[in-house]
């Protein structure tokens, strides 16, 4: 972060097309293999009169990474000399794992976190003790796994265990 340099006026013109690739370089601090574009939390980038407004949406209401992400976006843009930036948080439409990119899903699995299985969001409240979502073990690729807890190491993940290789693993919950 170039804090000891004089504040630069934008030597290059600010455009949305210049901002999007920079956002690809901002990662989720809790799942560092994912960029915020992979996660699908950047909803819009608008540039007007050299002022950028970036709209992001939280994954979960209490996600403690949101403030860090907003700060990281500012710092990344500042490094390019873009200081005139507003980061707007939007709740509606609520974030869904449907917005996670295919590349993001692959990166998650390679990292050891099972990606969301679409269409399995908690929607049937009376389906108590219903069958667990079949989630493939990201390590040995077996489908023979079981849910340990709906609540895992972060709000967006559940805890699973593989019945074959016995490894516990995180599952990025389907949230729709």
């Amino acid at each position: 972060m170039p804090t000891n340099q004089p504040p630069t006026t934008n030597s290059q013109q600010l455009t949305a097309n210049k901002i999007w690739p920079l956002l690809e370089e901002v990662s989720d601090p809790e799942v560092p293999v994912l960029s915020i574009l992979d996660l699908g939390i950047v909803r819009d980038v608008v540039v007007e009169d050299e002022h950028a407004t970036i709209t992001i949406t939280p994954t979960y209401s209490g996600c403690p990474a949101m403030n860090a992400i907003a700060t990281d976006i500012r710092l990344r843009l500042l490094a390019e000399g873009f200081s005139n930036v507003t980061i707007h948080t939007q709740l509606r439409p609520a974030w869904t794992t449907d917005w996670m990119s295919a590349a993001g899903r692959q990166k998650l699995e390679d990292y050891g976190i099972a990606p969301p299985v679409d269409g399995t969001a908690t929607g049937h409240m009376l389906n108590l003790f219903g069958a667990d979502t079949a989630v493939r073990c990201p390590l040995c690729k077996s489908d023979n796994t079981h849910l340990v807890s709906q609540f895992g190491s972060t709000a967006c993940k559940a805890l699973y265990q593989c019945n074959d290789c016995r490894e516990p693993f995180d599952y990025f919950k389907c949230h729709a």
Partner: protein
Amino acid sequence: MQSASATTQPLPTYPPEVHAALLTYLVQLADTSLVLGHRLSEWCGHGPVLEQDLALANIALDLLGETRSLYQYAAELEGEGRTEDDLAFLRPATEYRNPLLVEQPNGDFAATIVRQFLFDNFHYHVLQQLQRYPDERLAAIAGKSVKEAAYHLKWSSEWVIRLGDGTEESRQRIEKALRTLWRYADELTTPTPAEQTIQTAGLLPDYASLLPAMQAHTAHVFAEATLPLPEGVVMQQGGKLGRHSEHLGYLLAELQYMQRTYPGMTW
């Protein structure tokens, strides 16, 4: 709780009495999720097993997230320069509007589960309606939180069943928790004057309309748990009007300690 991002949404305009009632209601909702979230956070490191310790902390975090959105909206609607932090940390217990249920102490795991089940059953059903109501900002918060509340209700419902239909010990404990906590259930669905005002204005569902779904869910869970529904319980009310049990003062003393001692402190 400093927010790193700005909100730029325009505020709605309502007649003065509706504006005042909506503000009171937003603070009531935020107080409720803050106080319950704080109670759940007291479990952190003390849960019966690691997975349930994590579940309790996860639910606490969801509730705290909802709290922040609500206080932010309330502070903007109030328009007197207060922030979410001022509302959370600098109001005395008599100004807190949470129902009595959520300030009750954690007790044992069964008491925490019963408190959570009673709250989740109401919370989930009211949010489900509220996300389709005309106040845009409140509907957006509800739409966000209802997805999380669904996980909470599933979790607490399954635990009521495990404890009720579990061992002699778990059964005896959940029966004791029901004897202690059921008396706080009705306050959730009994509207205050402020709630009545915004119900009349069409900004909040009539609680009577939520009861069939809530009661059906309770009946299903209690049947699975082989627990009889408590009957003839004398109900307690007053928290939503600022009349609290002694427990809230102790809770706020801990919750507010840092800001009261070192005003404006951040880290």
